[in-house]
């Protein structure tokens, strides 16, 4: 089973040591649930190869949906955790402008109850690998994505597009 990537809205909600004094072993802080489930109750994840070869493209695809070239935090966890939690994965296009990445790697979780969502978040919190991509790296990744034609510059939100154009001009 491949790894699954879930973007984190705000990493500090996942920093265990801030709440370690009271958090039971194997549990996760409640705010982490916010980062998993959207307002419609959907859980959107991305499949990442074991060798993480598609990770740059997946990160660029998600970053391309955002309104600023801000830091990008994510958690990578074993896809097996989904079935263990009692949910299942289903292929569903995401909302990224990278149509290939969307079709090949985006997944939604189905049959997600409150308890299953909590189990999944706990599994991702305890066993997952959290990582961060800096704002500077996000700009580089998006520039590369445009150069490789994974994305078009015009697909990006105005603020991100301007940042990329400025960076490209400075490099030139």
């Amino acid at each position: 089973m491949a790894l699954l990537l879930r973007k984190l809205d705000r990493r500090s909600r996942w920093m265990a040591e801030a709440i370690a004094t009271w958090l039971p072993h194997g549990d996760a802080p409640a705010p982490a649930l916010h980062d998993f489930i959207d307002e419609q109750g959907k859980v959107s994840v991305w499949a990442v190869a074991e060798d993480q070869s598609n990770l740059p493209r997946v990160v660029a695809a998600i970053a391309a949906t955002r309104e600023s070239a801000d830091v990008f935090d994510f958690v990578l966890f074993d896809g097996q955790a989904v079935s263990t939690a009692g949910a299942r994965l289903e292929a569903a296009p995401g909302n990224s402008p990278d149509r290939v990445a969307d079709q090949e790697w985006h997944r939604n979780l189905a049959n997600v109850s409150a308890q299953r969502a909590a189990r999944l978040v706990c599994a991702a919190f305890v066993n997952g690998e959290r990582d961060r991509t800096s704002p500077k790296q996000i700009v580089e990744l998006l520039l590369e994505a445009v150069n490789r034609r994974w994305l078009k510059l015009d697909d990006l939100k105005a603020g991100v597009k301007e940042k990329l154009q400025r960076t490209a001009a400075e490099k030139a």
Partner: protein
Amino acid sequence: MNAGRPQLASQGRKPQEFRVGDSDTAWECFVGSVRWTLKGDTLSPKFWFVQQAAPDPLHESGEAKPPDQLAQGQQGTIQLQVYSELPGFDVWLNAPRGPGVSWEAPAEAGTRGVQPDRSQEELEQYVRGVLEAAREEYFADGMESSVSRELVPVVERHHKQIAEFLFYWLAGEKGDPEVTAEALHWLGLMDHAPSRHWRRRLLERCLEASSLTVRDAAGIGLAAMDDPQAVPSVNAAIERESCAELRQLLERVLAQLEGRPGWRCF
């Protein structure tokens, strides 16, 4: 000054009109932000502009910079500014229409006047109001918020006047840590050379905050600014940091500022 929800008019073949707000202010004025989502087909906008209901004989209507092209499902924010020497004007955004195109009414537009001749006290009250009103908001990295939409234009236009208050409020941890963190994200991300020095100093000060959320946001802001002058402050923050996860992230910021590899290699 009135702040109300924008109204929608979509009659016949006219461009769709979003009423952004009324203003009883004069002079240079930041009017507000309009959020838009295009539901229909791709099209190139041709009619983005701001109209003043009361014609100003001295100045033309302000312009809102359009995106180059709107694609289906695309979202964005347009910030509107009006230059007028007459008090009392209405501002409208005329958006393009076409077959299969519809618009969501902007939910957050309102009139916010920030005048260059505003008193220090008025300006501080305005920014304090923005930061306090955002307490219930949910913030996500990379996404705009009421804080980004309101604070960034104020800093761009009044950075000398507002710097001291932002030091007091943000570094002094007077407000909600999540809101403070959101402000620090955007103060780090914004490209505004005149305020660069004090924005960096503010982020450095916030590395000393009692809130982990604020310290993390300060580190992110410094990474976004990518200014090697912050090296001593980040070094000191690493020495102090009690949270191992945040310490590791700050070490990556330090590596970046020193020109060493630190972040994950792609």
